[in-house]
């Protein structure tokens, strides 16, 4: 369970850097039923987590804590700090990093603690991108220490309400207790487990609903004997900016970096945002936003669009005027601009930066667009 909470926390940190200046504080409370690989007994557990997140357009930080309690059989406490940053507002590069410390007690894998960290670089390309990262971790159980490292390469792509990603990871670890409990073994004399994970994820988000499916294939490399697969499903329903519920079920493969055992798990979480995510005093509210002014002419009008942005790779305008074909804006000293002649009538227009979501223009009336985005309404007399 702590692995899942940690993954969600770190994922949130990763996405936070793309947002405008924001703050969010929330608590998660829930229950989980877990069954470790090779064990008949199921363990019921209660979970509680707190998360604080602060972000600006260039930097985001996230601090979180989580407690898992399963009576006499297992308990864990975990704290994480993660951050993401970009060199400039429209940079296509993003760096992410974080550390996690945990203490746990369990009847199967004894008592101890773990410390882990990760560093990752992302490159956004059009509606997707690629990443490369590495992670390290150390775990101590009953004074027996183990060490693990991982490197991963991946890519993601977004189309409409769907986002998909695929990654390949290479793991090295000497955590024999963790892997033996997961039924992964080494021949006599070998000391290091070598594994390759291939993972795919499909995410669908529409209105208040979020569905996520993750599949992982794990194979042993060199002397390591392993061939495993796992599938995990998550569903989240957001009732309001303050309340949401989440359900998850499936198998999580052993995570040597964070010291989390292989298990079949089902979770249910209620999330309450004490401070729902909201914008806080942006340093420059104009930066990155598209402004429009309409100047009447003898027949029709000219719609002038201007975006203050440093070095966005591509800024495009589309609308009824272009049959919704994207028209690139012209680069200026401090941003991008375009002047569009509009005939009398009603028009709809939208702008996007670096292939991102289509948005309306400030200075115009903006409406939802039937496709989960936004468009501007412009009336020319």
């Amino acid at each position, binding site marked *: 369970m702590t692995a899942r909470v940690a993954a969600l926390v770190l994922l949130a940190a990763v996405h936070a850097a793309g947002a405008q200046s924001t703050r969010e504080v929330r608590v998660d409370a829930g229950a989980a039923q877990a069954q470790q690989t090779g064990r008949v007994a199921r363990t019921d557990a209660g979970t509680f987590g707190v998360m604080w997140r602060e972000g600006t357009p260039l930097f985001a930080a996230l601090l979180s804590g989580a407690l898992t309690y399963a009576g006499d059989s297992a308990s864990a406490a975990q704290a994480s700090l993660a951050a993401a940053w970009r060199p400039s507002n429209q940079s296509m590069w993003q760096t992410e990093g974080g550390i996690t410390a945990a203490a746990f007690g369990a009847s199967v894998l004894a008592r101890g603690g773990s410390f882990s960290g990760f560093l990752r670089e992302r490159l956004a390309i059009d*509606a997707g991108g690629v990443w490369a990262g590495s992670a390290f971790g150390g775990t101590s159980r009953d004074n027996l220490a183990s060490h693990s490292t991982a490197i991963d390469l991946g890519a993601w792509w977004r189309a409409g309400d769907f986002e998909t990603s695929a990654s390949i990871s290479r793991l090295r670890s000497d955590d024999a207790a963790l892997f033996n409990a997961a039924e992964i073994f080494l021949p006599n004399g070998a000391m290091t487990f070598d594994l390759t994970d291939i993972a795919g994820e499909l995410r669908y988000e529409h209105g208040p609903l979020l569905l996520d499916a993750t599949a992982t294939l794990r194979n042993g490399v060199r002397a390591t004997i392993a061939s495993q697969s796992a599938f995990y499903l998550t569903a989240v329903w957001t009732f309001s900016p303050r309340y949401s519920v989440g359900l998850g079920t499936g198998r999580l493969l052993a995570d040597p970096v964070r010291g989390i055992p292989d298990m079949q798990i089902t979770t249910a979480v209620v999330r309450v945002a004490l401070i729902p995510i909201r914008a806080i005093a942006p340093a420059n509210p104009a930066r990155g936003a598209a402004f429009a002014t309409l100047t009447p002419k003898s027949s029709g009008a000219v719609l002038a669009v201007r975006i203050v942005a440093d070095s966005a790779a591509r800024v495009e305008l589309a609308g*009824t005027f272009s049959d919704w074909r994207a028209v690139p804006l012209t680069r200026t000293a401090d941003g991008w601009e375009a002047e569009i002649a509009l005939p009398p009538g009603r028009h709809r227009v939208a702008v996007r930066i670096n292939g991102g979501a289509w948005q309306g223009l400030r200075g115009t009336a903006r*409406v939802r667009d039937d*496709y989960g985005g936004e468009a501007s309404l412009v*009336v020319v007399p």
Partner: protein
Amino acid sequence: MKKNSLNTHVTLAAAGALLVAFAGSRAGAQQEARVSAIRDDATRIVVVEQLSLAKEHGVPTEPLLSKALEGVAKKASSASIRTAMDNLQKRLRKANDLLAPSASVDEVSAGADALYVGVHDKTLRQMRQAAPRRSIAVELGVLTELVARKVPEAKASKMVLDLMARGATGAQLTALNSAVQNDVAAGLTPEAALDRHGRGILSLLPPPPGVTNGNPRPR
């Protein structure tokens, strides 16, 4: 596998036949070219079906095609585009009825937009009654913009109807819209901004027909 392939071909052939039937005029031919440019087969079939349905019901096809092309540009699925077109088609039919008996294509399109942002049915009827023999497309567009800017519907409708009754021009109405936008950007509530500028324009206009007490009162 063969069966699926056959079904796809049959559906595409049917869509092609609908497309040919649809292209009866020059405007239709232009729309056909725009529809043909949609690369996704499933989306193209949806669009052809929806346009044919609109033609059967006598509602304008241009806003429907534009809605579909917007969905294509925004990488929406064919199912999302079908839903969006279907909803728009319902609004267009409703606007056609509410603005009868003399609704132009522009008026019906503008009426559908107005319904989308939350303008009430009775407001469309009242606007038609206020101007039965001229186009009210601009008035509907301005009302839509005001409501989209979060001016309460009742307030915005009353102001636009008052301005129509006093003979405000399209340019005056769109100027009102811009002024409201500027005030909202400066921190005024949309309602207060509309009050401020709407009354200013009203004070410059002649009284509505039937009102005999001379100059309009300053407000």
